[in-house]
């Protein structure tokens, strides 16, 4: 699935992350990370974003992370919310992975 709209979730507060998902004019998931702990956790952050995109069957998107030291669970929640907002759907709390 391609994204048609932009979705944003999160804040720039300490320990949070602002996730912006946008349509990707090219193909694939393009992840851009701004974080003071990118050297330590950059790979893990990419993996988390990719797995969220997989959950929602998103194949093409630009994902921007403005990270202020968020833990993995926070990043996952923000990424899921950003995707839901971009898709204009509510989060399915009953579903296994929110779809």
């Amino acid at each position, binding site marked *: 699935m391609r994204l048609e709209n932009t979705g944003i979730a999160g804040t720039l507060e300490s320990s949070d992350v602002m996730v912006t998902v946008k349509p990707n004019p090219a193909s694939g998931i393009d992840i851009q990370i701004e974080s003071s702990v990118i050297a330590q*956790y950059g790979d893990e952050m990419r993996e988390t974003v990719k797995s969220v995109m997989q959950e929602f069957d998103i194949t093409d998107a630009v994902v921007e992370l403005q990270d202020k030291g968020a*833990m993995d669970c926070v990043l996952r929640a923000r990424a899921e919310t950003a995707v839901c907002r971009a898709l204009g759907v509510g989060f399915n709390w009953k579903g296994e992975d929110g779809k």
Partner: protein
Amino acid sequence: MVNAVGREMPEKIGSYTVRPFAGTGKAAKILPPVVSKRCPKLGPEDHNKLCKDLKEAIVKTGLKDGMTISFHHCFREGDMVIGQVLTAIRELGIKHLRFAPSAVVNIKNPSIVSFVKDGTIDRIEASGIRGELGDAVIDGLMDEPVILRPHGARPRAIETGDLQIDVAFIGASSSDEYGNCTGQIGPNACGSLGYAFVDASCAAQVVIVTDNLVEYPCCPTSISQQFVDYVVAVEQIGDPVKIGAGAARMTKNPRDLMIASKAADAIAASRLFKEGFSFQTGAGAISIACTNYLAERMEERGIHASFALGGMTANIIEMFKKGLVRVLECSQSFDAVAARAIAEYPNILEIDNSVYSNPYTKGSMLDKLNFGVLGALEVDTDFNINILTGMSGEMMGGLGGGPDVADGADISIVTIPVIRGRTPSIVPKVFTCCTPGESVAMVVTEAGIALNPKHKYYEMLREDFEAAGIATVTIQYLCDLALSYTGVPKPIETTDKVVAVVEYRDGTVIDVIRQIKR
């Protein structure tokens, strides 16, 4: 080679010969006589030491290429002396100086980096570096390693001759034309000049830089005219807002308050918490809150302290005014309230940093300290403390008096949250070891208190905690907890180039900092 805390280091780094750390209390008992470059000298014939500007004073000192210059950090981030002096030195074309301030000085405009790049400075010895200078050093800016020393080690290094100062530039908020000076009065008062005393007594030449010339004799006087060669009046020596305009406010962060309260409970549970005890708490957010909680516990139990030591804050002055502490021994004043208090109360004393923290005097005040509260960036499962380098290996702070207080105080308490953002603070191995774990009694976090089983007072603390009903956890538990929140970070990659040497109190090397691979 590998030192006593398991850190690997080369035997020689540039022109620096490494003496590896061998454990606390392992240093020589008797040392050679004190080294001082101070010479006997007749006072000026016209009985005036005033120079028209910094350049005239610098020229008169005979400062030459390759010499060592020193400064104190009592104006903290508000310092405007260092920038002006270095600029004057640059304009005179003097090069290759060793720059030896008493602490981290983070001046921005002009930046120290520019003085390194143009060759004015080619060696640095301080208690820490950070900001632009820190980043540049960790990226390999300098050929010679930066030598970092805790507060107590600097006067030791000066008096043993490891660090000999040719010209000390001492900023003072008031001075007379003959060099009697102080930091206690004047528009840019900074309080105690504690870190400048050893420079005044051991440097070959001493230049006082002030922006408030007063009628002779300056009263009160901290540094006496007998040590002073020249006096320069400049327009401004500091930015009063950054020197410390008001009292630091109490944090509202519930996590920090919880840690502070637990630390105060730990102190109050100890049998050493009794009439006439002594403490040092420091200036961090948790420290200030801990001081307030400690004051409450003292009032509840009707206990008074004999003295508080080190860097003073407004809330310790408040405790003093309430009669909770008999004497305040100030090596530094962290805010304007503390700065003014020295001149106002006879029992609030300005002390020389050397008597505060130097293990090689005939007795430092830390020897008499019961409780010391410390901050840290990281603590590891061996209780080693890192107070210098951050998550990505960047230079974040200075050693300050941390290693001294940990070693000197009977009970040293590290207050630290288990994580900061996604950065674990309790880790398997600190990136830079600054304070050896054997000198740390306990770590207090929001998730529990860990006692160090290898500390000399472990059994006593364990008994006291049991009696007071204070539960403890292991340091391994705290480390596992932190990593369960953050995930395991990728290790920092470094090159083989050593950019900084971390000296312990006794001048041995406790760790080295290597260039970060980018």
